[in-house]
């Protein structure tokens, strides 16, 4: 199989990449890891006239840390996160999530920012980064703007990016308290789309009460979702079986799954409940065992 014919550009600077996007707009697609774009082009689900390959733009590589955040360059591959154990100290949810994505070969090419821009509701990063309260920086002809991941994802395969904007990086806030995290995913086989995914991170204050919590849900709505009511019920309370069951029920209620060949809506909703309960229970044990930031 091969895609429709297209013109290929490989800019070597960010300005050049933005210029090309401004010029070709809707006729262009940005190629980062290509692990969703190229299969879609081969299946003729996408047929851009221009492919703008950003892999030779050095400004988009690498990552840096500030006092209160980790900033991932747009070309950060899933495997670069998966293999970096140093991230666990401050950002425990990132490696948890990276290791569940697709398969190891796809993870060597696919990028965090590319996954967000593709906006597949079953994507693992969207739920994870929503749970973490992350934002993307988008560069357009007018300059940079910061977009929270929740505002970036508008609908299935649809983002709030303008046609001439490109994601340059992803900003992940550093937890203020002790944090522990868990990612869970049900898939029929390695590499298949998720049936259900849950990514969650909990921070606790000195008394053990929850001071921040993010619960992201994948594959159970038109975009990744954040289970806000489940988060609210946990705030200010120590994790325990009762409040965890309460939160799990609220997360299941927040899910908006569709029945398809991967399962009925009712089944998927119940998997959300089970995964949130399992995830929060795992986090409770990790916090108690001291496998967490600041412990």
């Amino acid at each position: 199989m091969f895609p429709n014919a297209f013109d290929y550009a490989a800019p070597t600077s960010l300005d050049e990449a933005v210029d090309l996007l401004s010029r070709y707009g809707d006729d262009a697609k940005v190629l980062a890891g290509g692990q969703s774009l190229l299969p879609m082009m081969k299946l003729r689900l996408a047929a851009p006239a221009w492919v703008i390959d950003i892999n030779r733009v050095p400004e988009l590589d690498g990552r840096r840390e500030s006092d209160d955040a980790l900033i991932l360059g747009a070309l950060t591959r899933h495997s670069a996160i998966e293999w970096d154990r140093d991230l666990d100290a401050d950002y425990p949810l990132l490696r948890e999530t990276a290791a569940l994505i697709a398969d190891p070969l796809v993870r060597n090419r696919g990028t965090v920012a590319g996954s967000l821009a593709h906006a597949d509701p079953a994507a693992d990063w969207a739920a994870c980064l929503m749970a973490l309260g992350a934002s993307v920086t988008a560069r357009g002809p007018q300059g940079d703007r910061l977009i929270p991941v929740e505002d970036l994802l508008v609908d299935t395969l649809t983002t709030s990016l303008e046609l001439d904007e490109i994601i340059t990086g992803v900003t992940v806030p550093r937890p203020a308290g002790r944090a522990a995290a868990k990612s869970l995913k049900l898939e029929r086989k390695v590499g298949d789309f998720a049936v259900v995914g849950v990514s969650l991170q909990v921070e606790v204050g000195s008394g053990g009460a929850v001071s921040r919590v993010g619960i992201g849900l994948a594959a159970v709505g038109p975009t990744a979702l954040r289970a806000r009511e489940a988060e609210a019920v946990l705030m200010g309370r120590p994790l325990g079986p009762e409040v965890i069951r309460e939160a799990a029920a609220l997360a299941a209620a927040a899910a908006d799954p569709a029945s398809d060949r991967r399962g009925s809506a009712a089944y998927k909703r119940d998997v959300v409940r089970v995964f949130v309960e399992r995830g929060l229970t795992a986090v409770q044990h990790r916090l108690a065992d001291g496998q967490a930031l600041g412990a």
Partner: protein
Amino acid sequence: MHIEVTVNGRLRSADVEARTLLAYLLRDEFNLTGTHVGCDTTSCGACTVIWDGLPVKSCTVLAGQVDGGAITTVEGLEQDAQLHPLQQGFWDNHGLQCGFCTPGMLMTTYALLQRRPHPTETEIRQAISGNLCRCTGYQNIVAAVQQAAARLSAQDAMEEVQA
């Protein structure tokens, strides 16, 4: 478009359409048909090659992307008519039956052993989770990789003694 790429240590060039995929560049332009195209949908891993040190599915990379880069294919494993210890491991342990998935299995596990010379069984199984085999049930593939890991580390130890 014009492409220059180092394949198995040799600089090669080709003129191809922008939509040409790496797997087809290797097979159709360079006659390196050891790289197999199985599913052609980023699922099976038969087309796995090493690109600048990392194993990737070559059916899901454009030929133009590897311009200036370095590729290792299954043809690059054998040295001086000697099978690579991984290839010998597959031979000795019956790590293949029909052989279609084998080039991808070899390249994926070659990269694994470069990164982790002493992988656990779980690490081997995780590493090949993007490579499908419909014959062996994977057991003999895992045994082949374990044998190769042991031989390679014994070789390294010998070289250290000699040095």
